[in-house]
């Protein structure tokens, strides 16, 4: 993160956030700041607590501990009216584009819903105009207003979901795996659309994805989550060039060899020969085989998969600490691994 940004006040300050479902702790002690206009990438595997963390911020699930400061007000303890006001500036785009739209509402009605709630004075003509304009901003035709979600493809439904989230010009847009269910040829369209809207409106983004390559291209900083905890927070370049936490390293090395495109304008003969890299050759030994499931009580949740684990890793949960300026890691051996 550049100095100018870190000197401004955070838009969102999450401190010690904890979410428990019965005996299961989905999110433990999550703390981070998000600055105006910033894009934070949140990566981790399924079940690591990414979505739960996002939903707890919006109070769509109840956090058991911690605070979520939004413009100086704690969203977790404020009353319903204040929460409703805050949500005007805090929107979310969900993973499943079709399931997140009401099948019985036209696209126009769905996108108009936030306007109806937050700008009740608007007459229906003006509302329709705003919605049509928004549809065009997300790359759809304004005359699709009266169509139903099932008439659209997955990519188009995601554009509708984005239109609904962006119509109030929110200060923060939370995107929960917005491109995971889309084909690769459509993925880029949606990511670029989000980038365009963000640039025009200055919206900050919390972008949740398990796809590290996508996150890399659009994030300023990246949060890595494992087993309910934030284990690494770093500026984008530092995270990809010099990851510190052993889990982050495992995650990065497990991504299948990307297939570089031959440069379009150069004669193919000059392209470097590409032999697909076998994944097993790249994956570190620690992740090559599954480990027998031993319940982790205390200590670092990654220790059984970690080549660097020592005794303290099984007794004490490593706190998230600043290992290098701006680069936070929750690992007992971070200083040796940096």
């Amino acid at each position, binding site marked *: 993160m550049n100095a100018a940004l870190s000197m401004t006040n955070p838009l969102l300050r999450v401190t010690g956030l904890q979410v428990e479902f019965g005996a299961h702790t989905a999110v433990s002690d999550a703390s981070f700041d998000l600055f105006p206009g910033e894009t934070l990438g949140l990566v981790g*595997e*399924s079940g690591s607590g990414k979505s739960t963390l996002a939903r707890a911020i919006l109070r769509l699930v109840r956090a058991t501990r911690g605070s979520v400061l939004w413009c100086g007000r704690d969203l977790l303890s404020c009353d319903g009216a204040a929460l409703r006001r805050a949500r005007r500036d805090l929107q979310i785009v969900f993973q499943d584009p079709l399931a997140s739209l009401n099948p019985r509402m036209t696209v126009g009605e769905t996108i108009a819903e936030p306007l109806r709630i937050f700008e009740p004075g608007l007459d229906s003509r003006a509302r329709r105009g705003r919605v049509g304009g928004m549809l065009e901003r997300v790359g759809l035709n304004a005359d699709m207003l009266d169509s139903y979600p099932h008439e659209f*493809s997955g*990519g*188009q439904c995601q554009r509708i979901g984005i239109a609904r989230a962006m119509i109030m010009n929110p200060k923060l847009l939370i995107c929960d795996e917005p491109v995971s269910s889309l*084909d*690769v*040829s*459509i*993925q*880029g*369209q949606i*990511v*670029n659309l989000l*980038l365009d809207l963000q640039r025009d409106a200055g919206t900050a983004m919390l972008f949740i994805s*398990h*796809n*590290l*390559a*996508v996150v*890399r*291209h659009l994030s300023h900083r990246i949060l890595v989550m494992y087993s309910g905890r934030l284990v690494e927070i770093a500026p984008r370049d530092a995270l*990809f060039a010099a990851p510190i936490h052993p889990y982050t390293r*495992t*995650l*990065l*090395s*497990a*991504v*299948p*060899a*990307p*297939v*570089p*495109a*031959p440069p*379009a304008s150069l004669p*193919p*003969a000059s*392209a470097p*020969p*590409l*032999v*697909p*890299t*076998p*994944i*097993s050759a790249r*994956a570190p030994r620690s*992740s*090559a*085989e*599954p*480990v*027998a*499931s031993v319940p982790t009580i205390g200590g670092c949740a990654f220790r059984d998969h970690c080549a660097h684990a020592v005794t303290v890793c099984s007794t004490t949960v490593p706190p998230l600490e600043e290992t290098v300026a701006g680069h936070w890691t929750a690992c007992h051996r971070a200083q040796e691994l940096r």
Partner: protein
Amino acid sequence: MQTLLSIEDLSVSFARPNRNISAVRQVSLAVTARECLGIVGESGSGKTQVFMAAMGLLAANAAADGSVRFESEELLRAASKELNRIRGSKLTMVFQDPMTSLTPHLKIGTQLAEVLVCHRGTSWSEARIAARRMLERVRVPEAQRRLSQYPHELSGGLRQRVMIGMSLMCEPLLVIADEPTTALDVTVQAQIIALLRAMREETNMALVLISHDLAVVAGLADRILVMYAGRIVESAAAAELLRHARHPYTAELLKCIPSLSGPLLERLPTLSGQPPRPGESLAGCAFAPRCPRAAERCRVERPLLEAADTAPVGTAPGGEAGSGNANGARRVACHFPLTP
């Protein structure tokens, strides 16, 4: 090379109240013994339906036309009794979702052993021993304990290992893996790909790997077929296809894959437009509306899948796989293919 599976002019369509939706259009392909054939395409391209037809697993409203022969036996019009002799033993399938492809109310050991009991007439006690050995082979820790567990007690990755183990119980000649890693996390995906690679080395099986993810296929396949809107648009030895795509769709698809290394981009590369809707039929090339190279001819005349010139000698040091036989021959369905 011995041809195991030979598909000729296969078409699959689904009957809908008002019209027929065509999902696979005149697909021909062959799988030879011990090879790994990758099938790549986006959702709706028909890649799964080709092999569902081969396995006799098409939905009730589907109709298949053409021919699918496995070791010279016709499968397409075979009765289920004949099919059941082959599928599950010599010809097996691993499905995408390990959550739903195992029977939830049967113990893992029973499901694995059942394969041998049904196909080989092995006794249950012997089959259970074989089941435990198989779990060890597919690197499931604590194999003995797992035998008496139910699918829901296992993680997704372990369940996929069980699925792969089940597909290998009768030493199949061909395993069809349909998006075997798509439902899994990236670190687990790497483990499953490593396992499939090891199983190929340890057994005589051929493998068809169906995936929307070119990077996954790139790590395993000898040969790759690219499908678009129900047809094969390009086929080539894997290394060659990745190095020099000839069909504009393949080339654009390769460009769209965001990379972990490489320069940082302001915007991600995209393919404009959308694939044709299911059942939508176009007079010319189905890719023409999205193709940067399309000309008038592409909109009126459908290009046939034909042999393409291979890359000039000396530019393919890694292209040994399949480059000598007819199967590895490069084919492309495009009026204006990219030059090698």
